């Protein structure tokens, strides 16, 4: 046998040590562990024999059974539970561990969980949606507002997810849009084995800031997002980056999180820079009050950098121009959610109260008419804020009614080009101070956990001068495929 070098010996010892520590969960308990494993093996064997016996018995019973009473429902279907107000499947959960013994191998056995959500609406809008603006707030490039008039195909959301191995879970959600484009909404991996309350997520994912930001559109309680989400995050903030969460080892729910991303999603932009474009911190806390009420509160902070973030406006004579902002946006969010159901059972009645307050500041440069005059000067928003408060109540099984109020305040920005007299304030009509507001009512009906029909009516006064837009929405949401699990 070859002589071992000291290095090889040390390496072998280390490997052996690792193997040893892996094999023995607690030093000194080897015997007990072995005993327990033997016991488990024995019990597993007994169980299998018993299961086989029962199966034989059941087969005999079936063979001897008289036909069921006339009119009795067929015995093939197994029940679950009465559907309450469905929360539609979120990311489909990882597959449960294999349980069925004695099945032959099958190439499709490891197929991931696949689910598809289809949505669509009919919109009746009293004002032209092309003129929609949340007054006083720089619009996101993606646009904002209630969508088009008449029938609209909403997004068809395809989610594919599974555990990768014992260490990672992966999930992809692609939204096929009504205009035939495809958005990668989320495509992320998540660790399962970091332990000690840590979870690392990476890829593209909805940011953990705020409450509603992580909720997929088919799970919203209203057809559209609150105004403040539309103005501050162009609907939803998706990070391309990483997120680390830590859950405190306490009986109360305390969760801390941090995110670092490229900042490609509004209010940031993709930049030609290796630096972080977006950073976020958040903390969540939650618990129960008695057996009927549960709550969660959170506070979040987000900083995003943007470079030449363009938006459409008109100049003082009404000619369309493209302006652009480059700089830093800092946002604070405070959120709170409370759910009440008799004995915590939401099958027949449930009340959900939810509200968020956001505050942000922009600091940087504002360029006027980037394709023409291209004048630039410093820009800083004063403090801009917005909030919404909503209540949704399931008044009878499967029927829910909701009320939401939105309010925003743009403050008066300081525009260098205006204060130095280069341009009049009227050259930036999109930035003239505004106090958008909206009141929304909603009723929805869920025939099962997997289908929902909704009617919504809104008095929208987001435009300058509180010009009233009456908006009626009729919406359908259907979920097919894997039964997903959903967050609080």
């Amino acid at each position, binding site marked *: 046998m070859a002589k071992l070098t000291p290095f090889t010996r040390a390496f072998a010892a280390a490997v052996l040590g690792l193997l040893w520590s892996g094999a023995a969960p607690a030093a000194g*308990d080897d015997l*007990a*562990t072995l005993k*327990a*494993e033997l*016991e*488990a093996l*024995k019990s597993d064997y*007994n*169980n299998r024999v*018993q299961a086989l016996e*029962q199966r034989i018995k059941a087969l005999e019973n079936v063979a001897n059974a008289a036909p069921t*009473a*006339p*009119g*009795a*429902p067929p015995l*093939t*279907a*197994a*029940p*679950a*539970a009465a*559907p*309450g107000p469905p*929360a539609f499947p979120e990311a489909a*959960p*990882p597959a*449960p*561990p294999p*349980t069925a013994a004695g099945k032959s191998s099958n190439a499709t056995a490891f197929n991931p969980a696949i689910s598809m959500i289809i949505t669509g609406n009919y919109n009746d809008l009293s004002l032209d949606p092309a003129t929609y603006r949340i007054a006083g707030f720089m619009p996101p490039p993606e646009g904002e507002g209630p969508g088009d008039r008449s029938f609209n195909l909403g997004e068809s959301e395809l989610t594919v997810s599974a555990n990768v191995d014992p260490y990672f879970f992966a999930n992809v959600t692609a939204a096929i849009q009504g205009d035939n484009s495809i958005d990668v909404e989320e495509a992320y991996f998540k660790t*399962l*084995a*970091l*332990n*000690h*309350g*840590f*979870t690392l997520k990476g890829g593209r994912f909805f940011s953990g800031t705020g409450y509603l930001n992580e909720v997929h559109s088919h799970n919203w309680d209203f057809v559209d997002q609150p105004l403040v989400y539309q103005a501050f995050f162009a609907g939803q903030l998706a990070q391309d980056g990483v997120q680390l969460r830590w859950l*405190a*080892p*306490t*009986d*109360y729910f*305390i*969760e801390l999180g941090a995110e670092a991303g490229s900042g490609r999603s509004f209010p940031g932009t993709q930049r030609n820079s290796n630096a972080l474009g977006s950073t976020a911190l958040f903390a969540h806390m*939650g618990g*129960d009050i008695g*057996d009927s009420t549960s709550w969660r509160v959170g506070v979040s902070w987000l900083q995003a950098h943007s470079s030449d973030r363009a938006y459409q406006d008109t100049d003082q004579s009404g000619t369309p121009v493209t302006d652009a902002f480059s700089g830093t946006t800092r946002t604070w969010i405070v959120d709170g959610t409370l*759910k009440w159901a008799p004995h*915590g*059972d*939401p*099958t027949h009645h449930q009340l959900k109260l939810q509200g968020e307050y956001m505050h942000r500041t922009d600091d940087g440069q504002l360029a006027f008419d980037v394709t023409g005059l291209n004048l630039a000067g410093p820009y800083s928003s004063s403090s801009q804020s917005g909030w919404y408060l909503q209540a949704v109540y399931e008044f009878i099984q499967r029927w829910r009614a909701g009320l939401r109020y939105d309010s925003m305040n743009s403050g008066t920005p300081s525009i260098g080009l205006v204060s130095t007299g280069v341009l009049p304030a009227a050259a930036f009509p999109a930035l003239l101070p505004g106090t958008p507001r909206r009141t929304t009512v909603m009723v929805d009906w869920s025939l*099962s956990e*997997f289908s929902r029909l909704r009617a919504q009516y809104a008095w929208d006064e987001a435009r300058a001068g509180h010009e009233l837009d009456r908006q009626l929405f009729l919406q359908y949401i259907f979920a*097919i495929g894997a*039964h997903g*699990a959903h967050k*609080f």
Partner: protein
Amino acid sequence: MLRNLRLSIAGALLALLTALPAHAALKVLATTPDWASLLSELGGDKVNVYTATSPFQDVHRVDAKPSLVARARSADLVVATGADLEIGWLPVLLQDSGNTKIQPGNAGYFEAAPLVHLLEVPSAVDRSMGDIHPLGNPHVTLDPRNIATIAKALAARLAQVDAANAAYYAARSDDFQKRWAAATAKWESDAAPLRGVPVVVIHRDQVYLCNWLGLKELAAIEPKPGVPPSAGYLGELVTKLSATPPKIILRNAYNDPKAAEWLAERIHVPVVLLPYTVGGTPEAKDLFSLFDDTIKRLLAGAK
């Protein structure tokens, strides 16, 4: 300033971590009161059990509440029914827990249903059939023979995750199995008159009870699993059941009483309220009294 902030956050975290009590009893998260009761039979004071749901909750329809995520974080063992019963919320708890021990496939994750023979395994699944479970009917607890099987495996699992107390669990398990076998024999002899008694159920969650006691299930008030009955369907049911009347209508503590009472009035048959799970009635204090009470109520109703 940022440096100070970081320092103070780190300090706070350290303080939190060190303030934790030294490792005491095994922390177990049970999805239902039945498993909690079984755990205290088998684990005694060596386990510290938190029950995720109350007897008046439909276990299929529970939120992944923050309080449950927090409990999953520090659990050494999760005891679930499985067969998709908790599919709407348990996967979220496990994933968000940051706790490797309780991930499916590890010793800290225990599922009961796969250990027993499941009834009503559908040969084909389609959601037009209602909310069916592809793996079979998950409501396995109301057959004491299932409990005996599950208890054996659970005791072995306790010994595996808490090897230091393996002998303790083994002794309690032996004692439990003896008492359980005796109790089962008594329930079976007490319930002999129930054999062949025709019943109507609300939701097909009494299937294992009916199968064990030989109750004859004539119909379910839900036309399809998870689908509430329409007025038309109830009308048809009245016509059918007037011809072949059941002796009793079974209702679980967590079911809405309305449809059962409506039907009971029309066909002049009593509704029997059953605890379904530990705590469902004041008498059902643990697994033993759950079956005592269930059989007592059935016998009283079927008189």
